[in-house]
């Protein structure tokens, strides 16, 4: 900690992308501040794979015509991740599943950010009795375990459509964001520059848009990144239980579920989608963690 150590530039991203402010920091600080690059690279890689899945996948994710000839094949040159009980190529399914799992997580986190930021900003700006009621409502919402709520709803909903799953994850994921945003908005509202802006006649929507919301961006980015990690894991869990993404649509969770019957005999069905899940969750979490240090935020819980 005391000796300055330069960490080699693993990501290879160019120095020019760093702001001048970052470059002028001491080596210790700057190497810590560059920690976001490696996880960021992983996420870019995952996103690229998801976008180009149809081009990258060697087979269709659906049941092939000759399915009875190629069921439950172990990994081989023809099928690097093996095949499942219906003869589908697991590599192709994991690639296609990345589109579902990632976009589902991103979409639901986006929804929860919009909901949480609006709710928190209103509570923080309006204050008084309305704020107290909004916060008690939030306490009630936070007291319900999210997983139990999701299990209860999805268990009774046959053939849950993807959009409904996004809505469910989004509408149950914004309570923490709302509370963080409310606290931050309250802090910002007491800042001199907000008083100074009021003194020049700025108010209402313009105050929110120009003088308050831009200051929330670091907080929201960090929170979103950590939430994406949590949501990927949550969706994998739900899908594993058969309550999330419904087959035949592939998701990392439901591919693992197919392999759950024979972990010893068909290990490839669990291991490869499991690895994909772990890499995605770890990368998002590491990125969120690094960005939190980079923005020097301490109000976002790990």
């Amino acid at each position, binding site marked *: 900690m005391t000796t300055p150590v330069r960490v080699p530039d693993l990501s290879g991203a160019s120095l020019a992308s760093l702001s001048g402010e970052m470059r002028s920091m001491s080596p210790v600080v700057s190497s810590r501040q560059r920690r976001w690059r490696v996880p960021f690279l992983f996420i870019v890689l995952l996103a690229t794979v998801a976008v180009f899945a149809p081009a990258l996948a060697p087979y269709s994710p659906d049941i092939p015509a000759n399915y009875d000839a190629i069921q439950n094949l172990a990994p081989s040159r023809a099928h690097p991740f093996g095949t499942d009980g219906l003869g589908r190529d697991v590599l192709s399914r994991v690639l296609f599943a990345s589109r579902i799992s990632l976009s589902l997580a991103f979409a639901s986190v986006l929804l929860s950010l919009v909901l949480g930021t609006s709710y928190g900003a209103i509570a923080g700006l309006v204050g008084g009795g309305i704020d107290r009621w909004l916060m008690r409502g939030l306490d009630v919402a936070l007291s319900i375990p999210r997983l139990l709520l999701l299990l209860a709803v999805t268990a009774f909903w046959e053939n849950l459509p993807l959009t409904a799953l996004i809505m469910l994850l989004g509408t149950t994921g914004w309570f923490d964001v709302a509370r963080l945003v409310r606290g931050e908005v309250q802090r910002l509202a007491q800042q*001199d520059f907000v008083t100074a802006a009021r003194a020049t006649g700025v108010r209402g929507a313009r105050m929110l848009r120009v003088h308050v919301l831009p200051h929330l961006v670091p907080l929201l980015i960090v929170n979103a990144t950590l939430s994406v990690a949590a949501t990927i894991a949550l969706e994998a869990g739900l899908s594993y239980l058969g309550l999330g993404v419904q087959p035949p649509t592939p998701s990392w969770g439901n591919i693992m579920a197919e392999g759950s019957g024979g972990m010893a005999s068909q290990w490839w069905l669990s291991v490869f989608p499991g690895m994909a899940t772990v890499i995605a969750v770890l990368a998002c979490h590491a990125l969120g963690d690094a960005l939190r240090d980079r923005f020097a935020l301490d109000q976002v819980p790990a």
Partner: protein
Amino acid sequence: MTVSRPLVKTDPAAPNGWAPNDPLLAVQSLRVTFDTTRGLARAVDGVSFTIAAGETVCVVGESGCGKSVAALSLLRLIPAPGRIESGSEIHFDGMNLLTLNEEALRSVRGRRMSMIFQEPMTALNPVLTVGEQIAEVVRVHTKASRREAWAQAVSMLREVGIADPDVRATEYPHQLSGGMRQRVMIAMALVLEPRLVIADEPTTALDVTIQAQILELLRAQRDRTGLALLLITHDLGVVAEMASRVLVMYAGQIVEEAPVGALFATATHPYTEGLLAAVPRLDQIGGRLRTIPGTVPAATDWPTGCRFRARCPHAFARCETDAPELVQVGPSHRARCHLVQEPSHRKAITP
């Protein structure tokens, strides 16, 4: 508590530009309270004064005397849980500011009355360029296009003495020096040529050489646009340089009000005398700095009688029971002290 007195004073000794029948700002019985856990804090407790168009009035007093709160209340910017008590009146430019609706108040803020804050680093938005912040004032109040507002911001930056205003306008507050930031604040406050500018300790956060430049800039802009200036300070040097009239505040009240010359020549209130005596002088080398013993009492329980008596070297029995009123001492010179009527209680003070 407050003497009812006419809002409009006629005074032959009035400084230049003071139109006797038209005070630009008339504050009457202003009371601001904060409901705190330790009780009701009466931060401003019955303050009345006027400012004429083009006049410069200084408010002096220690930290905690209510001068900043009084200033913020003029634009109704008191932070919660503070409130302006009923019975207070603020008339500005023909309007009753305390009964204005939000929309009308908005048209006053920044356009007809503006404010310069003490610490430009925190009073400027760190995520906006300084040009954007000045242009925003223009855009909020006029129909100017983005481009016109920007041009006005740049020319205002030039006006407040910033070199390369085209470049500086695109920079963020953290890229500027402290003095330049305060120039930017002044540009923001003056861009729409308001009639009254409130400056709350505009030079306190700056080093001495920059202080002089900023005061010079304020004076030049005042003379250029004919604005009235309410300057809040605890620096009597600033007062001597800038003010035409001075209000001395103590414990939420005005304790002395005088033209600047009279204040320095014949200060009457013992608190004012103490403030003047506490200024270090170059012609008295050595010895201890003079101070006023004690501190300002808490706003939640002002003492009965005279609020300054615990710290006053001349205090006598009446000071404990009777709260003094502001009484006339000389031409437009008033003081809140029983010594005016009973000068025999004044004790000789050994320096």
